C-alpha cells in the first residue's frame, strides 16, 4: 500500500465499491432464488379455517395454534418464510397442533370474535389454546429458535400450583 502522503486524500475506494456492487447483484440473485424456493415450500403447514377447528380438536385431542397475522406485516412474512416454510418446523406443528390462521384481512364475524376473545392488539400473535387453563401467547416474532422454544413449552404440562403460603409458615 502506498503511504498516505503519496496518494490523494480523496482517493476513490475502488475495492470497496467493487465489493458493494458484486454483493448487490448477489443479493438480488439470492432473493429471487429464495423467493422461488419458498413459493414451492408454501403449504407445508396444514392450516384450518377457524370454523372447523373446534370440531377437529375434539377429534384429535390436540391443542389449537392460532396464528394472527397479515399479508402487510413484515415480521409475519418473515415468520412464514423462516418457520412455516421450514420442513422440520412444519412437521412439528402438524404433528402437535391444529393450526388455524386468522388473517387480518379476514373481516368475518367469527374472526372478529376470535380477535376480541384473545385480545389481539399486535401482529403477529400466536395463541396456543389447549382447551383447559389459560391459553399461552407469544406476541411479535423474535426468530425461529425462540418460536420453536415457545411451541415446545406449550406442550409441557402446567407447573403444579404453589402451596398456600400460610401452610408453609406453620
Amino acid at each position, binding site marked *: 500500500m502506498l503511504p*498516505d502522503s503519496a496518494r490523494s*486524500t480523496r482517493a476513490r475506494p475502488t475495492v470497496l465499491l467493487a465489493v458493494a456492487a458484486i454483493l448487490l447483484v448477489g443479493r438480488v440473485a439470492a432473493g429471487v432464488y429464495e423467493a422461488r424456493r419458498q413459493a414451492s415450500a408454501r403449504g407445508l403447514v396444514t392450516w384450518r379455517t377457524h370454523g372447523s377447528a373446534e370440531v377437529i380438536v375434539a377429534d384429535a385431542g390436540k391443542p389449537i395454534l392460532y396464528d394472527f397475522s397479515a399479508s402487510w406485516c413484515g415480521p409475519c412474512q418473515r415468520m412464514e418464510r423462516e418457520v412455516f416454510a421450514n420442513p422440520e418446523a412444519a412437521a412439528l406443528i402438524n404433528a402437535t397442533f391444529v393450526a388455524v390462521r386468522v388473517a387480518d384481512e379476514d373481516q368475518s364475524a367469527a374472526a372478529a370474535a376470535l380477535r376480541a376473545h384473545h385480545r389481539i392488539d399486535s401482529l403477529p400473535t400466536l395463541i396456543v389454546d389447549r382447551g383447559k387453563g389459560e391459553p399461552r401467547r407469544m406476541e411479535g416474532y423474535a*426468530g425461529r429458535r425462540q418460536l420453536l422454544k415457545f411451541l415446545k413449552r406449550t406442550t409441557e404440562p402446567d407447573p403444579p400450583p404453589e402451596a398456600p403460603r400460610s401452610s408453609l409458615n406453620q
Partner: protein
Amino acid sequence: MTFAALRGLVVVTWRERLLKPLVGGLCLVVALSQITTARLTGELQDPVLLLTLLIAGGSVGRDVTSGVLPLLFTRPLVRSHYVFAKWIAVGTAAAVLSVVTLVAEAVLLARAGQGLAGGEIVDAIVKSMTTAFGISSVLVLFSVLASGFADVLIWVGLNTLPLIAHKVIPQRMAEEWQAFLNPSLDWAATVGPPASLFQPVSYLSTVALCLALAAIAINRKELSYASG
C-alpha cells in the same frame, strides 16, 4: 493508511465516545436494565440497538460540528480510511458492550437455575455483534450526510416511515427497507435447514454499500471551520 494511524483513530473514537459521562452512564443504565429484565423474564434481552444508537450516533457529524474534522483533514489522511476507522471503532464498542451484557445475563440465568442452551446463547451473540456493525454502518453513512446527532433522527424517521405508510408501500419493499436500516444476521435462520444464502449476502451488501456511499459522500464534502 498505516495500521498505527488506523489504530490511533479507533482508540481516539473509543475515548471520545465511551469516556463521556453522559454516554458512558446511559450505556451502563441500558445494560443494567436489560440484565434486570432478563433476570425477571428468564429470557436474554439484547441491548444492542440502544447501545449502538448511543455510541454510533453522531460519529462523524459531531466531528464536523466541533471543528475537529477540518483540522484532521489537513493531515495526509485518506478520507475513506477515516470513515472505515469510525465504523470499526463504534461497531466494536457497541458489539463488545452488548456481548458482555448478554454473557452477564446468561451467567445470571444459569446461576438462577434458568440456564439457556448453548446454541441459543451463540445465536444471540452473533445477532448482537452483526447488528452492532450493521447499524453502525448505516449511522456512519447518515452521519457523513448530516451534522451533529441528526443521523439518529434520520434513522428513526426512516424506520417509522413504513409503519406510517404501510397501506401505500408494498409489504416486500417495506421489509427490504427495514432490513436495510437494521442489518443483522439471524444465525439459526442462516444455517437452516434450509440454509439461507440471502441472509448473509443481504447483510454484507448493506454494510458494504453504506460504507462505500459514506466514502463517496465524505470525498465530496467541502469542509471549513464554519462547517457546523
